[in-house]
């Protein structure tokens, strides 16, 4: 038998006795010592935190202080721009946005000013700029992603398509794939105001985004037919109105779970497959009771519905009002 395989009985030592006692069982002096011990630990932690904070502060000051830099570093020009992003913006956009003069030195740049320039594009949600010695400027950005689009027209200018993010911010949408943009539904029935040089976030976009995300995920066949989303009754009645490409109007309520409403809609669309009685309006905002109205079938041309042959004829007419301060009324 090997000597390494001994199973020894466990003997309990006095060290197994827990040494903790309740404060009640301590004397006044013992409690005072315990409190003083706690205070000492707290003071120690505070001192360490203070020293660390001070060291970090000094490091930051030295890093940003041009006078503390060696001369060689001060005279180095910016030779490369590095863009780190989670979206679609590229270096061309960055160079154009920053517009750094060619003879600029790395230490001569005002990073705060450059950051504000980057953030002036509403597509950028957050930005951080850092010098990477000897000659690179690194820009880290987080981009907004679009959930819908809208058309806007400033005074006297041509109508312009803007993309709308989940947080309601409208932005130009540089660098996005046009095919992807084409799949986004239009926003209607909103009132936006101008704040400075940009537009104020659109209210209620979170509810719309949730609905669109649920539809895209759970019933993409339905989502693909959605063309216009009206927010006109959102704040007053809590309803989101959707117009599909084939002229159907769907009303969603914001109080009930979207998944449930989408499931009901899917059921209805499947059940109403009769081409002679197409669905015209479905109101899902009333809970389990879903009022549905049917319309007349489009005239048949060579065995196909007219709408299928000429889809553009079913699209709503889009009118773009002019933008005027302080409010911009946008109608689709």
């Amino acid at each position: 038998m090997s000597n390494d395989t001994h199973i020894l009985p466990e003997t309990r030592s006095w060290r197994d006795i827990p040494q903790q006692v309740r404060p009640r069982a301590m004397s006044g002096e013992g409690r005072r010592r315990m409190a003083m011990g706690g205070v000492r630990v707290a003071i120690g932690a505070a001192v360490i935190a203070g020293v660390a904070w001070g060291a970090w502060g000094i490091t930051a000051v030295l890093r940003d202080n041009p006078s503390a830099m060696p001369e060689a570093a001060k005279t180095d020009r910016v030779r490369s721009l590095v863009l780190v992003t989670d979206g679609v913006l590229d270096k061309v956009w960055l160079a154009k946005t920053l517009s750094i003069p060619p003879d600029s030195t790395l230490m001569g740049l005002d990073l705060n000013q450059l950051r504000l320039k980057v953030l002036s594009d509403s597509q950028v949600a957050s930005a951080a700029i850092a010098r990477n010695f000897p000659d690179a400027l690194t820009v880290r950005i987080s981009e907004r992603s679009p959930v819908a689009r809208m058309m806007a027209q400033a005074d006297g200018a041509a109508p312009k398509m803007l993309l709308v993010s989940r947080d309601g911010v409208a932005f130009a949408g540089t660098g996005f794939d046009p095919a992807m943009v084409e799949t986004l539904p239009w926003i209607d029935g909103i009132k936006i105001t101008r704040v400075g040089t940009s537009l104020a976030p659109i209210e209620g976009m979170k509810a719309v985004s949730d609905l669109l995300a649920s539809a895209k995920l759970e019933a993409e066949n339905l989502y693909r037919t959605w063309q216009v989303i009206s927010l006109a009754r959102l704040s007053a009645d809590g309803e989101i109105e959707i117009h599909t490409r084939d002229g159907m109007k769907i009303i969603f309520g914001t109080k009930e779970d979207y998944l449930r409403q989408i499931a009901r809609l899917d059921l209805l669309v499947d059940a109403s497959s009769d081409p002679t009685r197409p669905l015209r309006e479905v109101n899902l905002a009333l809970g389990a009771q879903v009022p549905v109205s049917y319309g007349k079938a489009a005239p048949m041309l060579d065995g196909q519905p007219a709408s299928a042959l000429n889809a553009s004829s079913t699209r709503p007419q889009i009118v773009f009002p002019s933008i005027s301060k302080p409010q911009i009324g946008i109608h689709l």
Partner: protein
Amino acid sequence: MSSKTSFIGAVEIGTSKVTVLIGEYTGREIVIIGCGECPSRGVIKGSVVDYRAATECTHSALEIAERDANERIDCVYLAQTGGHLEGFYNEASLNVKAADNMIELGDIRTVCDLAKAKELPLGRMVVHNIRRPFRVDGRLVPTSPENLVGQKLEVGYWTVHGQEQRLADNIHVIRGFNLEVRELVLSSLASGHMVTSLEERQNGVLAIDIGAGTTDYVLYRNGAPHTTGVVAVGGGHFTNDISIGLRLTEGQAEKLKLRFGRATVQSRDKNEKVWLDGNFSIGDRQFSRQAIESITSARAWELLEVVKKKLGHSFSPESCAGGVVLTGGGAKLPALAECASNVFGTCARLGEAPSWVNENVRDPGFHTALGILYYGVSVQSDRAASARRKGGFLHNVARLFAST
């Protein structure tokens, strides 16, 4: 102040008094910088029976010692005594594993684990595992047998165990002052180490520490503790005997014991009288000196006989060339060494603290606390030595080059 300086606290919660010593250890020497003493309350025969009273007096002694030292301690070494402590011997042997019969560290570890592994009754906990010297093929090895050659490795442990609740009570009294108990040290080992020399321990010596409530003893052989024990009889019983025998209060009996008590009967005259107070106050009485001496000597003889009986075959005058060393407050009883010599049949003497000990703590009542302090120093220096041994890679490389 050197960064190596550490403060060591030694606490003895005795039946008659609580003693606290604080030592400043510089890595080379220890200086006693604080001493606190307080009459004990709530402690009977070394066990806490009234938590609040014991806490109050212990904490007072700790406060006095800290004030005296002008330093704050965070942990202490605590003396442990009491009638509940018991010991047993267990040994194990092992066939050396290596083909060349060279003993390795693993063999030593295994045989030690085997010798220490013994199930204890419910509610009992190990206080100390005292190792006796190794034996390699029957040959005594006082130090480590590593790298020696032999077929059979043997070792034995004297295991001291105590009742869990009583050990916990002692620890909690200290913990109530927000102090950690770093080690529990047997009172007998502490005081025995203090009053015996290395040579005496090598030749065999019996150290007896007579406290107020208990008597602790340790028998050394071959330089290591061989047997320890506690008898739940102490100086308090001498007082009690006088109190009953002469019909006195405990205070009066204590006074007579201290003034006229002896461990042998010296007075031959039955009519020799001594005064209780001797100040002509009302109620002052006379007692026979011989009666007092008879009572205390009978108790002293009996106490030492009990110790001898408990030691059994472990003790013999031949194997105890160092004789008997007496310490503790009870050892101050005159002629106790003579009595011990008669009982054990060997030479006996009163223990004295080493010369480096301050005058104010040289009293036998401090020997246990001094021993604990000494034990604390040993533990600290052992730890420092093991830390040095471990070292770092560069340190080891440097040592390698230094040795070549």
